[in-house]
């Protein structure tokens, strides 16, 4: 081969390799985007059932239950407006407790139960997962707009301010 055509082969190989890589990246990207929804959005709108999504909010007080003989726990996640039942099997993060902001990643069942594969809590006492804070903020804004006058849980109010 002439040097010129050799160089063409080289450049061609690089372009092909690059396109393959880009396709790979974009494909994987599209499949693995995890969208965030607030409990209200899950209640109101049709949220996809077959995709992994994230929901965030506060662990509703008095809803935490542990199943006998297994490591499965049940609790509700609320944004002050709506609340979603969540089940999770495994070890919860250290800072998980009722009244705290958390983010759960998993799938929504048609029954309305959210089966979490991961639960994220904040990493220190003064810090709130931004997504959980966002859920509370959105719920509060929606409330102010409609002015239904439902009382907001004092915890969620302070959490929003603490963001």
């Amino acid at each position, binding site marked *: 081969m002439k*040097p010129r055509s*050799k*160089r063409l*082969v*080289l450049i061609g190989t*690089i372009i092909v*390799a*690059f396109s393959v*890589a*880009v396709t*790979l*990246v974009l494909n*994987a*990207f599209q*499949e*693995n*985007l*995890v*969208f*965030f929804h607030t409990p209200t959005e899950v209640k109101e709108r049709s949220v996809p059932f077959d995709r*992994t999504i*994230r929901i965030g909010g506060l662990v509703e007080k008095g809803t935490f239950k*542990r199943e006998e*003989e*297994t*490591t499965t726990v049940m609790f509700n996640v609320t944004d002050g407006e709506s609340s979603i039942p969540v089940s999770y*099997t*495994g*070890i*919860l993060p*250290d*800072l998980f407790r009722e009244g705290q902001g958390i*983010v759960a*990643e998993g799938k929504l069942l048609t029954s309305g139960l959210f089966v979490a594969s991961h639960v*994220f809590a*904040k*990493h*220190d*006492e*003064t*810090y709130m*997962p*931004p*997504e959980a804070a*966002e859920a509370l903020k959105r719920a509060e804004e929606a409330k102010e707009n409609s002015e239904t006058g439902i009382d907001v849980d004092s915890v969620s109010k302070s959490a929003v301010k603490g*963001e």
Partner: protein
Amino acid sequence: MLPEIGQFLMVLAFCLAVIQSIFPLLGAQKGQLSWMKMGPNLAWAQFAALAFAYGLLTYAFIDHDFSVALAASHSSINLPIEYRISAVWGNHEGSLLLWILILAGWGVAVASFSNNLPVAMSSRVLAVMGMISVGFIGFMVFTSNPFERMMMVPLDGNDLNPMLQDPGMIFHPPLLYMGYVGFAVAFSFAMAALIGGRLDASWARWSRPWTTIAWVFLTLGIALGSWWAYAELGWGGWWFWDPVENASFMPWLLATALIHSLAVTEKRGAFRSWTVMLAILTFALTIVGAFLVRSGVITSVHAFATDPTRGVYILVFLAVIIGASLMLYAWRAPKVGMGGGFSSWSRESVLLANNVLLVVACSAVFIGTMYPLIIDALGMGKMSVGPPYFNTVFVPLMVPLLVMMIIGPLVPWKNATLKGSFNRLYPVLAAGLLAAVVWPLLMGEWGVIVAIMIFVATGIVGVFIVDLLPRIKAETFAGKISRFKKLNVSWLGMHVAHIGMAITIIGMAMAMGYQEEKDVRVAPGDVVEMAGYTFTFDGVKQVRGANYSSQYGTVRVKEDGELLTTLHPEKRTYDKHKGMPMTQASIDRSLFRDLYVSLGDPIGRTGAWVIRVYYKPYMTWLWTGVMIMSVGGVLAISDRRYRVKIRRRFKKRPSKESQAVID
């Protein structure tokens, strides 16, 4: 009084940095030797001022001066001394001061070891480093004063975040910063070369050791962070594709590309503009990292408290750096020229492919990390990109890269034949195939991904042997030894680093492919069986530590009925952070497996707990491999040509031709 002196010293350092960024550069442009000579002195003065300021801040922590807000919120009377010292960098302001101190330290290092450089070059390098210092010290002086006083002095401080009370905290941030900030040197060399219009093999040789040593620090820093997360967080994982992990990993990928591209520029004079571009981008990514951590845009163990002005400052700084350096690049790089040509099958083309793959991998990580942030900033909703994305993209990109690590060392520079390269490879490929078939079977189950990883890892080790044997050919064993001692150290460094990578790859493949995990609820006396080991849970009792109380579990591990070890996973509650229990996993490490137990939650009042038990094969290989990689980096820069020339240069300045290409 002392904190005010510290504040004054910071302002002083700022002024010194301003002078340092002006006069040495002007001197170099106008040929004013006295102005150029100011560079090293200014670098030393700036370093001294910052070191003194840093010492004063540390003293405030050690001496419990809670009138300093930072000490009050991050230290306490009962905090052990080693954590009082490391608490200084356990927060935004203090860690920024450490960052700046390290930057000044690199400046001093450049000033001290640049006697072999033309004075104009070293002056320009110091001037560019001065500009970077101006940016960072300005950031601290204007937005984040570490010496801020409290009006009401508390009797005791708030204590260090319990998560940071770990030996990992003492080493991880300083090492990581040494790496991060070190790329400022590589960047400054590139800028100085562009300004001087002299982008040649000697520029590459000067900047190579700096780049490599920064890379070594970054490698160790990342690995130490990973090792810490593995032991501390109780999740059992060692890499989470967390945005901040990615923030350190992206510059690592580009720096790895830069090291290889610098090799081509030094040996063959090729890839010059590309190398400069990589130096710019690597440094830019370290600032992107600073932005991710310090602007509060992400949820992470690493994120500091939110303050929008800080994020804006870093973004502006980033824009100035990228804008200025790219303008300089656009203005100067076209004059640089192409350098030596090479054929499509040569060491150069293998390294080019290496660079392309590393840059693509880095871009993929960048997209996954930044896309959710950008969408969020535009108010288009919240989303995240999970680990599956990174795994799907990363593994296919890494395999060809690793394959090139097998081929590369045997392909000569400039022009090679496919046949010549592969003839020597047959035994290597055969060994790789054999290992790929047998090794996974020994682990119990054959799997494609594990087999591929073992194939490439074995190949990388194999190619070292094939490359080594002809070089130490001698009649007697003693003869071989003496030839081994005369081997080119940087050639050896390359192979050692590659072998380190191979060992890490085996560790990763085995740990991912054959780990076993169980979350179980156990009452005292209950037994968990895993991978031939028997774990007996003996309950949890209350134990008192220096500034915490601990729920101290006991788990006996037996192998074949014999007691192997007793593990003590803990859940600690620090006095000052009652609401924040910390999980402390307990790990029994050995060459071929880690046994890992962590405590979950107590169940009722019966003494039963949820515990997590892991069997993780070959984890030790992962960390050992990284250590060996770093040793390889250090070997690579201890080559004589980085030192011998220094002495020779003093006597007579050799012409460019005499700097022969050394293989």
